[in-house]
């Protein structure tokens, strides 16, 4: 009986993330006073991502096609032991929208 193995998909992903920006400025009419301004903005970030899809070669090929077509990237840095059949039914559980990019970034431990 053939045993099931997996295919790991890894590389650099680009996605939008909420970032808090804070800065201080002097008020226009009272320059002796300092005002702190905080706001949130969605910015693009580039991070390393890895996902391992377990199952038959046919299911994995389908899951890979889905990732290419619908632009899915793993939710976390390392998403392990994802059944390919499960991924085809419910990709939101393991992945979110983003783009894979062909770029090397500095590794962080």
């Amino acid at each position, binding site marked *: 009986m053939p045993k099931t193995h997996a295919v790991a*998909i890894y590389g650099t992903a680009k996605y939008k993330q909420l970032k808090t920006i804070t800065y201080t400025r002097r008020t226009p009419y009272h320059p002796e006073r300092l005002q702190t301004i905080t706001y949130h903005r969605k910015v693009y970030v580039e991070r390393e991502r890895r996902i391992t899809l377990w199952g038959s070669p046919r299911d994995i090929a389908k899951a890979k096609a889905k990732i290419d077509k619908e632009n899915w990237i793993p939710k976390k840095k390392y998403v392990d032991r994802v059944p390919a059949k499960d991924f085809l039914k419910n990709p939101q559980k393991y992945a979110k929208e983003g783009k894979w990019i062909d770029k090397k970034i500095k590794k962080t431990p």
Partner: protein
Amino acid sequence: MTKKLKKHPNPYVLGFTTDKGLLLDLDNTTLHETRQIAKKYTRRFKLEGYLIMKSSQNNYHIIFNRYLTWKTALEYLFKIVWSYHYYEHGSKPSLTNWAILQACKRSMTLRISNKNRKPKPRLIEKRGKTNKLIDDYLSYTNIYP
């Protein structure tokens, strides 16, 4: 005339992952040495057969045929690392690093697609039985054309 480089079909890298067998990633090794390692450990651990793939210049992958439990596979992997670290040809730091990473992930991974400018691994040699893990490996490499 400058030669046009073939465009990378995927921006990510694909790797064959298993926890039911023994794989080896040998960096900075000659083909002769790779062959010696494959033959020696196939005989010593009764692994039935082996497949050698060339990933790039002086970098080779070895896939052994017999199915093993994760515990046994890890035992054999670290026996190879141990023997190379202390007895033969000096140490292989890249193999040690790779083995530690695989132990952390609880599965062994070898690349099956392009990576940056490196082409996908090419078949060099097949010896002994190839009906178990080697067949599985070859069927999974078909995912990446």
